[in-house]
C-alpha cells in the first residue's frame, strides 16, 4: 500500500499544473500557440513536447495557426440551434468564404463556433472579438454585420 501510494504521488510532476494557464497566456499574447513556445513550455513544466501538444490539442480554446484580426464565434448552443443557428453559421461561412476553424486569407477573420456563450435569450447569436454580441440574428442581419465591419476595417486600414 505504501509503495502504491508512493508511486501514485511520485508520478505527479507539479510543474505540470501550470501548463494550461501558461498556454493560455501564450495564446493571449500570440493569438495562437507557436511551436517554439510549446517547446519552451515543455521545458518549463517538466513534460515532453508531445504532452504539451496532446493537452493543448485536447482543449477547444487552443489554436496552432495564427488567428485573424477579428474572431467571429458562432454560438452553437441548444437555444441558438433551435432558433436557427445552422442557417446563421452557413451565412457567416458564405460571407467570409471560410469553413469553421479557418481564417480568411487576408487574416481579417477567423471563424469559430462555441459551445454556448450563455446569451440564450438572444438566440441565435454570434460574438465578435469576445465582446460584441449580435443577437436574435437572421441571415439578413449577418450580411449587415459583415458589411459594416468590413467597411470599418477598410476605413481603419
Amino acid at each position, binding site marked *: 500500500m505504501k509503495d502504491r501510494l508512493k508511486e501514485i*504521488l511520485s508520478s505527479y510532476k507539479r510543474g505540470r499544473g501550470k501548463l494550461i494557464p501558461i498556454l493560455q497566456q501564450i495564446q493571449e499574447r500570440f493569438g495562437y500557440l507557436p511551436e517554439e513556445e510549446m517547446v519552451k513550455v515543455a521545458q518549463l513544466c517538466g513534460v515532453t513536447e508531445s504532452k504539451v501538444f496532446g*493537452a493543448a490539442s*485536447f*482543449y477547444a480554446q487552443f489554436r496552432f495557426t495564427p488567428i485573424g484580426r477579428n474572431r467571429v464565434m458562432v454560438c*452553437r448552443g*441548444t437555444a441558438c440551434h*433551435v432558433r436557427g443557428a445552422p442557417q446563421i453559421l*452557413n451565412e457567416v461561412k458564405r460571407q467570409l468564404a471560410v469553413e469553421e476553424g479557418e481564417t480568411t486569407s487576408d487574416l481579417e477573420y477567423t471563424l469559430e463556433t462555441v459551445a*454556448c456563450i450563455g446569451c*440564450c435569450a438572444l438566440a441565435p447569436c454570434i460574438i465578435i472579438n469576445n465582446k460584441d454580441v449580435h443577437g436574435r440574428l437572421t441571415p439578413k442581419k449577418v450580411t449587415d454585420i459583415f458589411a459594416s465591419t468590413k467597411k470599418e476595417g477598410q476605413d481603419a486600414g
Partner: protein
Amino acid sequence: MPVRTVLLGQGTCCISAGAKQISAALREEIARLDLAGTVQVKHTGCRGFSQIDPVVIIEPEGLLYSEVKVDDAPEIARSLLPQGQPIERLFYRDPVTDRAIPHHRDITFYNKQQRTVLKNCGYIDPEEIDDYLAVGGYQALRKVLSEMTPEQVIEAVKRSGLRGLGGGGFPAGRKWEACRRVPGDEKYVVCNADEGDPGAFQDRSVLEGDPHSVVEGMIIAGYAVGATKGYVYVRAEYPLAVKRLGIAIAEARERGFLGENVLGNGFGFDIEIFQGAGAFVCGESTALTLSLEGARGMPKPLPRPRTTEVGLWGRPTLLNNVKTFANIRWIINKGAEWFASQGTEKSKGTAIFSLTGKITNCGLIEVPMGITLREIIFDIGGGVPGGRTFKAVQTGGPSGGVLPEGLLGTPIDFDSLTAAGSMMGSGGMVVVDEDTCMVDLARYFLDFTQKESCGQCSLCRLGSVQMLEILNAITEGNGRIEDIDLLIELGESVKIGSICGLGQSAPNPVLSTIRYFREEYESHILEKKCPARVCKGLISYIIVSDKCKACMICLRKCPVEAIKGGKKEVHVIDQDKCTRCGVCLSVCPERFGAVEIIPGREVKIHG
C-alpha cells in the same frame, strides 16, 4: 443618504443587450440632474429574466423597466426627480394578458419561483463585499468556525439532504464525509464551474451575481473536510465570471475570510481560479482534476478510487458544483431542517434551470424541487410564443433527453427525470415547438457529444460518430427503417460500455426522441418528409403563386439560379436545382411572404 437605488443588471446577457451603455448614460443623466445625492446606481448580477433584458429596477418602489434602451436614460433619470412619475411605456407587459405590470414582484416569471441560491443575484453588487455582508454574508462561516466542529458541519449538510447540483445528484453530505475520512494533511476543495452544457448558464449567473456565496461555501467545505486549498475550475469563455470571482476572492482575503488564519481561527484556506480551456468532458470529476494537473481531460475508467480518496495531485479532493457550494450558507444559517423541509422526499431544496428555446419568458429560474414541468413551462415560462404548439422539453443538455407533452406532469427531481429518460443534468431546459425536428435535435446533440468525446474509449468515440452518421443519413433522406433499431442497439451499448458519464449519457437524446417521437423518424425514413420542415434533405421551398409579386428579388439572390420567372411573371423554384439554402425565404419581403417551406421532396407538380 440616497433615497432611491437604481439596480442595473450587469450579467453577460444584460451586457450583451446593452446594459453597459445604459448604465453610463443613466449615471451621466443622474449627475446632470444633480440627483447623485439621492439616487444610487448599483450594478448587480443578472436577475434572470433574460427575455426582457436590459432591466432597470427602481427601489424601494420595486418598479421594473424592461427592454430599456440607451435613449431611455434621460427619461428614467427624470422620473427619479422628486416630482417624477413612473414610465409606463417601459413597464413589462404580460405576454398573455398584455397588461402592464409595474412591479417586479407581480411578474409571473418571478412570483412562481423560490429563490434561494439566486436570492441575492440581481440585488447586490457582486463586486462589493459589503453588499454581500449586508445581506448576511459570511455569517455562516463565522458560525461554523466559532460554534461547529467539522463533523457537525458535515452532519448538517447530510441532514439537509442536499444533493450535488452538477447533474449527478450524489448526496453532498456523504461526499464530504468520505473526503473527511480519508487520512491526509493535504486535501483540496474544487468548485466545478465548467458549465459546458450548451444551453445552461446558471453557474455563470451565480458567479457573476453572487460570487461570495460560492467562496463562503467553499471555505466552509474546506473546514469540514480538512482542506487548505481550493480551486474554482471555471470556463475561460466566462470572462466576467472570472473577473468577479477574482475580485470576490481578493476581497475575502483582505477581510480575513481567506488566508492562513481565517477569521483568526487558526484554520487556513485559500482559493485559486483555474480557467478551463474548453472541454465539456471536464465536467466529469477525474477529467477535471487531470485538467487542473495540466493533462488531457480523459476520465479515468472504473474501477478506480473515488476523487474523494485520490483526486487532485493524488490527494483527497472534494469536488462540488457552484450551486452546491452556494447552498451551504443557507443550510448553516437557516438550518438543515429548514432546507430539508423544501422539495421532495428525495430531492431537497431548489433546482435552477436555464429556461430557453421556444419559450415566451426566457431566463434563469429557481424553483422548488417537485414542481412540475408544466408549471415551469406554462406558468413561469409563459408557454410557447407566436401561437405555436408546444412539442417537447429537453432537459439535461446533451446528456439528457426530451420529454413530450404527455409527461409535463412529471415533477422536477433527480429520480423522476431519470425515470422518464432524461435527467436533471446541469440544468438546461430547452422548450421546442412544432417547428423543431426531433431527429435534427437528436443529431444536434450527438454532433456536440461526438466532438466533445475525449476519444479514449472505443464505444463513445466511435459509437457516437456512428450514430451521428446514421442520423445524418436519415435527415438527408437516406435513412433505412432498420436504422432505428440500429440506433437503439448502438445507443444501449454506448450507454453500458462507455467510460464516463458523458459517453454513457450521449445516446440519451437519441434514445428518448425515438422513444417519444418514433413517428418522426419514420416519416423521415419512409415518407422522406421532415414534418417540422427543418431537415434540408427532406423539405422543399416553394413560391406560393398567388402571393408572389414577381419582384425579382429572390430570383436575383438565388445563388444557384434555381428560380425561374421574370418581371410580372410569377416565380417558380426549380426543385432539381434548389439547394435549399433558404436565401429566397429570407429575402422575400415580409409583406409578401410568398416563399414557404413544405415537408418532403416530391413537389415538382407545384411547378
